[in-house]
């Protein structure tokens, strides 16, 4: 059991990371498309720069996605509120931007001497400027994606609830139908009995043998009807 739960948890975090990776790649491509025409005159940027941009944004979005995932797991089995999700997005965006910038600065620039994308573009950007710009991008695109995800989950939950409600309704309908059938079977039409008895009263004056036969029939009918009722179980048998 624990292994399954762990595997499920591992699956969850892997999916979260992949989600961040995909979102980061989309934003990286958008950013690349945004910068490409601007720096065109200075010699242009190519696939090498796109390759630099990808880890830049992907890393940040993976961190953001993991923070949002933590906010969701913390609230399980309930859904986190919109406020908490928003808070997670803002926190995750700033923390992700800061942490990933530190990693890039230490690994890419200092250790590998590669230089960051912003160095290639040639704009002098302070680290605070970079953090805020990246945080905004993550809050905007990450926030939109989280909103879409939350509405998708809500939709799925509502559909499940609808199925359950329909099942309950169908059950109630079925029970009612069974009940009505039982009630129908157990109802010996009092009007019919009343009319037959009135006729019987008159008939005994004129034709006692005929009346006797009629009464025989009526008692036979009632006996069968009673047996039916008790067999159907709609009415518990009464001692007579």
């Amino acid at each position, binding site marked *: 059991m624990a292994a399954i739960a762990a595997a499920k948890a591992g699956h969850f975090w892997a999916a979260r990371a992949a989600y961040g990776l995909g979102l980061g790649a989309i934003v990286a491509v958008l950013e690349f498309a945004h910068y490409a025409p601007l720096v065109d005159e200075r010699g242009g940027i190519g696939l090498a720069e796109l390759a630099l941009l990808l880890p830049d944004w992907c890393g940040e979005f993976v961190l953001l996605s993991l923070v949002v995932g933590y906010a969701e797991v913390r609230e399980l089995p309930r859904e986190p509120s919109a406020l908490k999700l928003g808070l997670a997005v803002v926190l995750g965006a700033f923390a992700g931007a800061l942490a990933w910038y530190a990693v890039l600065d230490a690994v890419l620039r200092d250790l590998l001497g590669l230089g960051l994308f912003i160095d290639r573009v040639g704009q002098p950007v302070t680290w605070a400027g970079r953090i805020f710009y990246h945080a905004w991008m993550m809050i905007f695109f990450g926030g939109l994606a989280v909103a879409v995800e939350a509405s998708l989950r809500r939709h799925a939950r509502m559909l499940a609830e609808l199925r359950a409600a329909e099942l309950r*309704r169908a059950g109630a309908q079925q029970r*009612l139908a069974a009940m009505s059938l039982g009630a129908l079977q157990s109802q010996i039409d009092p009007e019919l009995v009343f009319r037959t008895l009135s006729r019987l009263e008159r008939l005994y004056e004129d034709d006692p043998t005929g009346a006797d036969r009629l009464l025989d029939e009526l008692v036979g009918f009632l006996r069968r009807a009673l047996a039916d009722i008790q067999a159907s179980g709609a*009415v518990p048998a009464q001692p007579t």
Partner: protein
Amino acid sequence: MTPQWMSWSSLWRGGLLALAVVFVLSTQLLFQFSLYESWPLADILAGWLQYFVEQLLVGGCIFALIAGTAFVPTRSRVLRHVLLLLAIVLGALAGEFLLILRQQPSLDASAIAILGARVARWLVVAGLAYLYFFFRRQAAQAAAQVHESELQRVELDRRMTEARLQTLRSQIEPHFLFNTLANVQELYRTDPGRGRRMLASFVAYLRTALPRMRHDETTLAHEVDLARTYLDVLQVRMGERLKVRFDVPRDLAGLAFPPLALSTLTENAIKHGLNPLPEGGAIDIQARREGRQLKVGVTDTGAGLRASGGPGGGIANLRARLAALYGGEASLALEANTPRGIRATITVPIRAGSGGQA
């Protein structure tokens, strides 16, 4: 010719969402720190306002086209998504094209590349915003259906309770009917006079019982009549073994009383109380008012609780009926009578009978 899946409220919500997205999108300008180093704050704010208006123009184009797709009559989901994609791309293209044309009259390669980048960005933004809106609306529709389904279920449950009540009520009839008729039949063969009297009493009983059988409430007077005609039928059968006494004040006659409740108790008193005893006994029916309550008791001098093996199905059904009609306000008490037999008392809240005499 508004398509059914697009209502004014969803248009209004969609517009509000588009406005919010455009507004948040425009704040990107404020997050560019390099601006604060080279421009005064007032200029930045003015630039932000202009940027917001520009984005609003593009967002508006996209929104108008998306709303327009609602008027394309198609049931195909694929076509609907293609239309949506087209609406976003064309809307963004139109809006951004206008913006670029304002800045530079001729389009060069770089301007086209900028246009492409912006359209791609709008595609992601508007696509995500639309997905969010779409699933939210679907979820709201599903929630409304859940509500509707629950309402129907509650209604079905109510009808179920009603049907159960009907069945409980009709339970008294067939057995009594059968036993009496079997008796009538036998009597006609041995003692036609008594048989005739019994049949006449029984028809009188049905005449009293029938019009009221299916109603929820009747008057005490009517119920007492019913019990009296019922006991008349049995009197023919039991003769000296049955003595009956009624003590029902006239001023209580018009009060409301649950149907066939008194009959059930009377029937029980005969069946479990007097019938098993060779010497028979007496049945005493009395009604009295106590404060805001009406108490009607049926006392017999029969075999008693112990001999009858506790209350039967008829008593349980009567309790269920009382609970269904009055909730906790009514009760049925069974106690031992001295020196012998059972005293059953029904207590109901006092209300004027609605139907009067039948």
